[in-house]
């Protein structure tokens, strides 16, 4: 297929459709709305289900219902809307049915604004819903990657019977880039064994999909089963991209848009002869802890760059485990960093600005006192 110039939101929508999406349920919210609008046009055209739900709460529960049939389903929203989905996400994972969720993040907290941000990281990656659970989080940094990861999200969600989230910020949702869409996969015509589809003369036993285990030991066993399945995910599904890492003595770590802004900065630093590389986690969950731990053995320090106040930072620090200094640079509330800001952080680090003392967030906050 040829490359087309596609807007992130629309590219994700079309990629999902081509991945065999059977039903979409969503609610408008900037900067995600084009995704819903695309669906409102294309899904009925293709004879597939589209419902503009009355709210994000309803949308996630429509997804939950449809997911219980084993169909390929998704919803999408942005930060405040995602907060409303937390109960539903916890139920979906507790029921072990597959679903895909797209979060096009914007500035918060509260109503905030509609500018690009990455401040839902913790909410998505570390469980904004109640109970112990993990879900798969894919963080594209380009429209092409958004397309590819959307398709992957469906496959992973089904493989592990869990929720897969495509997590991006508003700028990527609004951006146009050339990308190649996948070929149209046929829509599934069969439903999995476990699904609630009506017995239809095909099964003797009814299927029950639920997340209650009133007896605590049963719930514990369920939790343990989910954890073991998560171990499989961790073993097989960690993905990341590296740039200029061969001889890197410093590593910038950033995901999504922050990662690609960092790429510009790393290139500029390389042009100045600074031996810095970039690690861009593609799966935020499972997170490349082990890879970073090993990296920490050979490099001199890390710079984590995010469009939030240092959320993934803590995961990097967990992985580095005190072996090497970690620094942080973040922009907040819908502000996107420019490459030159990151470049000067890299320069600072390369010229001795590394320490194992204190918390990188504190130092960053200190440096931010001057800004704006």
């Amino acid at each position, binding site marked *: 297929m040829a490359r087309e110039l596609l807007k992130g939101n629309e590219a994700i929508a079309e990629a999902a459709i081509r991945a065999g999406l059977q039903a979409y349920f969503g609610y408008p919210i900037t900067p995600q709305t084009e995704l819903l609008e695309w669906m409102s046009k294309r899904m009925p055209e293709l004879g597939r289900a589209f419902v503009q739900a009355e709210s994000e709460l309803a949308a996630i529960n429509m997804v939950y219902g449809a997911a219980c049939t084993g169909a390929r389903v998704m919803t999408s929203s942005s930060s405040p809307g995602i907060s409303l989905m937390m109960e539903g996400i916890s139920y979906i994972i507790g029921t072990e049915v597959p679903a895909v969720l797209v979060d096009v993040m914007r500035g918060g907290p509260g109503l905030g604004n509609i500018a690009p941000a990455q401040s839902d990281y913790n909410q998505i990656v570390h469980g904004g819903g109640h109970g112990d659970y993990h879900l798969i989080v894919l963080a594209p940094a380009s429209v092409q990657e958004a397309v590819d990861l959307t398709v992957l999200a469906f496959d992973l969600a089904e493989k592990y019977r869990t929720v897969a989230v495509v997590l991006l910020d508003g700028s990527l949702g609004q951006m*146009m*880039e050339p990308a190649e869409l996948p070929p149209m996969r046929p829509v599934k015509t069969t439903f999995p064994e476990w699904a609630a589809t009506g017995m239809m003369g095909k099964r003797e036993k009814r299927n029950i999909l639920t997340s209650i285990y009133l007896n605590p030991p049963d719930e514990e066993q369920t939790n343990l089963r989910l954890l073991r399945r998560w171990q499989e995910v961790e073993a097989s599904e960690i993905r990341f991209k590296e740039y200029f890492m061969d001889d890197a003595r410093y590593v910038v770590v950033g995901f999504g*848009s922050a990662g*690609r802004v960092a790429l510009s900065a790393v290139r500029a630093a390389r042009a100045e002869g600074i031996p810095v590389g970039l690690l861009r986690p593609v799966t935020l969950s499972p997170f490349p802890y082990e890879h970073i731990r090993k990296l920490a053995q050979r490099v001199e320090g890390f710079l984590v760059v995010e469009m939030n106040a240092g959320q993934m930072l803590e995961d990097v620090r967990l992985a580095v485990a005190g072996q090497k200094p970690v620094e942080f640079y973040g922009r907040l509330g819908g502000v996107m960093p420019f*490459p030159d800001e990151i470049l000067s952080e890299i320069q600072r680090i390369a010229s001795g600005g590394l320490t194992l003392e204190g918390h990188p967030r504190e130092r960053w906050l200190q440096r931010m006192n001057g800004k704006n």
Partner: protein
Amino acid sequence: MQTEIIIAGFGGQGVLFAGQLLSYAAMDAGKEVTWIPSYGPEMRGGTANCTVVISDEEIGSPLVRHPQAVIAMNLPSLDKYEPLVKSGGVLIVNASMVNRQPTRTDIHWVMVPGNEIAEELGDRRMTNMVMLGALLANLPILPLEALIQTLEAHLPARHHRLLPLNVEALKRGAEYLAVKA
């Protein structure tokens, strides 16, 4: 090689479309490209701009603080972006909508009476094409021909009758400078 262009103006001046056309053309020419708009409710009746980055390799930041080139379709855009153009860069100003000339001396700037030329062509909506033509004449990222082909390829069929006018506008924009120079 990477080139960054910001096209800025009022909503309704077609700045987003001009950026998209440039992006399509860059893509058709086998380049990497990103197009990113300002977005949101503040757009309504307000200002609009987009940033286009064209490159031979994977593009990092889609936004740049100091673009290589700027098309300023109106005065607020001139005020905002003149100081930001990269030293040695290009600034194309829609002379029809501003009451001053740029003051920087370390950049190459030109004044193009976009609205007037477009009105001469009989359609004020062509201003964006005139300005784009002027840009390409000053910033050799893509041949004008490439843009025209792209226009032919991507303009929706129902707008095809507008094609000659668009082409004409691009050319007039490019020529204006040639004439002036």
